[in-house]
C-alpha cells in the first residue's frame, strides 16, 4: 500500500503521519510537495495537520490554492481515499472537497487535550473496519475546529450519511460538555457524499501507539488499508 503525505509550507504533523504509516504500520509512504500537481500514483492521500501558510486569512484558505490540491481533487473524483486531519480537514473545506466551513473554537482559545468521538458512519475507507457507535479516544490540538454549515446543509449531510464522527463522552453520549469547540451538532468529522474523502479534527496519528495513551487512531489507518486492498482485489476480480 502506498500512502502520500502532502507537505505544505507550515504543515507540522507530516512527519508524525509518516512515522505512523511507515514505522508503525509498515506501509510505503511518499511525500507529496504542495507545489507539484501530482499525487504520484499513491493509494491514499493524507493531508496532515499544522498551520499551512501560517493559517493566515482563514485556516486552510491559502493552502487550498496550491497546485497539489488540483491533483488531490482529481484523485478524489476518481474515488481515491483521502483523509484530512485537523489543518488538512480545514484545507479540504476551503478547497471545496468537503462541505461546510470552520470557525474559531467557541472558547476562543487553542485546545489541546484528549477527546472521545463516536463513529457515526462506516461508509468511509477510514471507518470501514469500525462499528457505528464505537467510541474512539484521541487528542485534538486546534484553534479553529468549530465546524459550521447552515442548517439545511447539515440536514442534507445527515441524510446522506456524511457525518462520520461526533464528540461524545466516555459512554458514547453526545453531550454539549463533550464538545470541545462548539462544533455544529458536535461534528468532529465528515465525509463527502461518495464517502471517499474524510476530514476530522482529532489526530489519529497521535493515538496510534500504546505508549502515547491510545491506539484508536490506528484503527482508521488500518481500515483504509483493508478498504484499499478490498478495492484492489475487486478490480482484479472484474478483470
Amino acid at each position: 500500500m502506498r500512502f502520500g503525505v502532502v507537505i505544505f509550507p507550515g504543515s507540522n504533523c507530516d512527519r508524525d503521519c509518516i512515522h505512523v504509516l511507515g514505522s508503525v504500520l509498515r506501509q510505503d509512504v511518499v511525500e507529496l510537495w504542495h507545489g507539484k500537481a501530482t499525487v504520484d500514483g499513491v493509494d491514499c492521500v493524507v493531508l496532515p495537520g499544522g498551520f499551512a501558510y501560517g493559517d493566515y486569512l482563514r485556516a486552510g484558505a491559502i493552502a487550498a490554492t496550491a497546485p497539489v490540491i488540483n491533483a488531490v481533487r482529481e484523485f478524489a473524483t476518481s474515488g481515491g481515499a483521502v483523509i484530512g486531519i485537523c489543518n488538512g480537514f480545514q484545507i479540504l473545506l476551503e478547497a471545496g472537497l468537503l462541505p461546510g466551513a470552520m470557525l474559531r473554537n467557541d472558547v476562543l482559545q487553542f485546545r489541546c487535550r484528549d477527546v472521545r468521538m463516536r463513529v457515526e458512519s462506516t461508509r468511509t475507507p477510514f471507518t470501514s473496519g469500525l462499528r457505528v457507535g464505537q467510541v474512539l479516544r484521541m487528542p485534538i490540538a486546534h484553534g479553529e475546529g468549530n465546524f459550521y454549515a447552515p442548517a439545511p446543509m447539515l440536514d442534507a449531510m445527515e441524510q446522506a450519511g456524511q457525518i462520520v464522527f461526533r464528540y461524545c463522552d466516555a459512554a458514547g453520549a453526545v453531550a454539549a460538555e463533550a464538545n470541545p469547540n462548539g462544533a455544529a451538532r458536535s461534528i468532529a468529522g465528515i465525509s463527502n457524499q461518495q464517502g471517499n474523502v474524510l476530514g476530522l479534527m482529532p489526530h489519529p496519528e497521535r493515538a496510534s501507539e500504546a505508549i502515547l495513551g491510545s491506539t484508536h487512531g490506528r484503527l482508521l489507518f488500518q481500515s483504509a488499508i483493508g478498504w484499499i486492498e478490498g478495492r484492489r482485489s475487486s478490480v482484479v476480480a472484474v478483470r
Partner: protein
Amino acid sequence: MRVSTTHDPRPTTDGLKSVGLTPAEYDEIVVRLGRVPNPLELQLFGVMWSEHCGYKHSRLTLAMLPMDGPRLVEGPGENAGVVDIGGGWAVAFKMESHNHPSAVDPYNGAATGVGGIIRDVLSMGARPIALLDSLRFGPLDEPGPRAQAAGVVGGIAGYGNCIGVPTVGGELFSDPAYRGNPLVNVACLGLVRRDGIARSRAAGAGNSVIYAGARTGRDGIGGAAFASEELDDRSRREDRSAVQLGDPFAGKLLIEATLEALATGHVVAIQDMGAAGLTCATSEMAARGGVGMAIDLDEVPLRETSMRPDEILRSESQERMLLVVRRGFEHAVMAIFHRWGLQGRVIGAIIDVPELRIGWRGNTVAAIPPYALAEAPAYRPAASEPVGLLERWALDEAALPDMDGHQALLRLLASPDVASKRAVYQQYDHSVQVRTVLPPGAADAAVLRVLEAPPKGIALAVDGNGRYAALDPYRGARLAVAEAAAGLACVGAVPLGLTDCLNFGNPEDPEVFWTFRQAVSGIADACRALRIPVVGGNVSFYNESPDGPIPPTPVVAMVGLLDDVARTRTPAFEAARSTIVLLGRADGRLAGGLFLTELHGLTRGRPDDVDFGPHSRLLAVTREAVANGWLASAHDCADGGIAVTLAECAIAGGVGADITLPDSGPVDAALFGEAPSRIVVSLADEHLPALRDLAAAAGVPLHVLGRTGGDRLRITLSGRRVVDAPITELAQAHDALTKVFA
C-alpha cells in the same frame, strides 16, 4: 585604515550614555581599535557591550558554574549546550528570558521569546522537540496581571503551536512582587545526531557568508539595550521600535530549511540573528573562529527601503540565520531556502584579516576586530547583604493562630502556585511530534520518547521558587536544583545537565548583586554535588519597576535520561489498593513555605538547606524503584508540604487515601511544612520489602503513611482526623485557574 574616522573630540558622557557606554568603556574601545571609533562603530560597541549581549556584570560570577561533565559535548560558549544521550544522538538545550518585551507587549514579547530560543537550539543543528515555559506574574485576581498572563500564554501558544514544537512543561507563579515586571523564561530542547552537531565558529577564508530567512526591517532596533534598562512607565507607553514581531510561519519554514541546509554538509558554521542582530552574529562567529568577515550591507534583504547601516546592523527582525558556506556550494544551500519561500543570499565572505569589515554603498563604514566587539569588558560589581535579611529569617511559629486543616488544604490547592495549570497548557499543543509520553500536568517532569533511539526517553523539569530565593538566594537556588532533580527521579530519569535563567534587578545595586552572586554559587554547589554540568543559560538583569526590583528569581531547567521510556511513573494513585510510603525526612518546616504566605500573608523564615548527600541517595533509590517497576506512583513533596502532595496524588488518580502521619510537632507544620528530600510513593504490598531493603541499604528513611482507596483523602495525626475531604472537593479547589484564563 580605510574607515573614515572623523577625528571628533571625545564624545560627551551623555553622548556615550545614549549608546549605552561609559567613558571608561570608550577608552577601552580606543585601546582595542588603536584609534577613535566612528559613530557607527560606537553604536555597534554600544549594543554588543550591552548587558544583554555582553554579560558585563555577570560573566565573572558565572565562571563559578561547573561547565564540564563526561557527557558534555558543547558547553557555554555555543548557542546552546549539547549533551550526549547515547545511541549516536545528543540533545541541545537552553533557556532564555523575554521579560522586558513581554512586559511591554505580552503576546508578541512572549511569542518572539519562543522564536528566539528555538533558533538557538536550531543553531546547533538540532531539531527542536520540546519547549518549557517558566512564568511569573502579579496577583492573578487583578485585571492587569491577568491580562498579561493571558497575553503571554497566548503568545507562547501562538508561536509554539504553529511551528509544531510541543510545549511539554513549565511553571507559573503569582506574587505581587512581579506586578510591574512579569517574568517569561522559555527553554527549548532539540535532538541532534552526535556527528551532525553544528557550530558557530566561522572558518576558511574565501568561504561565503549567507543570510537566510526573513527580511530585515526596523523591528526591535535597540532591543538588546532595551533589555538592559529598567522598565518605567515611559517605556511601557511609548511607541518603541524595540518591540519585535514574530512570524511563526516563517519560523517553521526556517527550521525545515536550516536542517535541510545543514544536512548538505556544506555549512561550515551557523548562528541565529537574535539580540543585536547582524552585528552580534557576524562578530561572534568571526571571533569564535578567529577569522575576519567582510559584509556588504547592500546585499542584505530588506523589508523597508532606505534603511541606514546602523539600522540594518542592529535590527532584531525575527526568523533570520547567518551561515558560513563552503565556497562553490552557495547555490546549493541558497536553493534550499528559496524552495521554502525564504531569503537566501550571499552577503559577504570570510577573510584572512581578523577584522569585521562592513561595506555599504561602496565604502567601508566599519572595521573592527571581531573579538573587540564580542568580548565586552567584565565588571565585578559591589555586593552587600540586603539590610533586614536576618530579621526576615526570624519566625515565631508558636505565635501563629491554628488553622483548620481541611480549609487550609483547600486554599493551598486553589492558590495559583499549586493549582492545576491545565488552563494554561491546554492552550499549548503538547502532543505534536508524537513523542510526549508524560504531557504537562501528568508528572513532576515531562517525558518524551526518543523515536530515533528507542527505547530511550528524555525527561525535562523546570523549577524556581521565588519565595525561597527571596529569603535566602543561596539556599533558594540549591532548592530549585534539588527540586528539579527530584522531579526527574520521580519519573525515573538520571540528570544529564542543567540550563538556567537568572532573573534579577539592577546589578549595579549592591544588594541585588549580592543576591545574584549567592544564587549563582548555590546553583554551582548544587550542580557539583549532583555531578551535572551547567550547559548554558541566560541572565536577565534590570527587572525593576516603579515598585522596586523583583525578588531574586533563579530558574533552572534540568534534562534527564531514561533508558526505557516505558518505565516511568506519575504521581497518580492507582485504584488497586496499595501502600503509601514517604521516602526521606519526615519533618517539614513552615519557614519560607507557601502555607505561611498564603494563609498568614507572611513570607518569612529561613528555608531549610539541602543536604545533597542524603538527597542524592534518595533520588537514586527512587529511580531504581521506578526502573524496577515496583512503584504505582511517585511524587516529589514540594510547595504546600505533604498534605498538598497527597492531595495531588489523589486528584490525579481520582483515588482517595487513608493516611496516618508520623507524629512530629504542630499540626500545621506536619501537614503543610516544606522540606527538600521527600518523595511520596505508592506500591503494591508485594514490593514493599524490596523497597525497604533498598532504602535501608542507602540509608534513606522510609515511613509507611497509609493506603490508597476510597474517594476521600483522610489524614490522621496524633490520633486526630485533621483532614477528611472528598476527592471531588479537592479537585474543584485545584481547578481554580480555569476561571482566571477563561
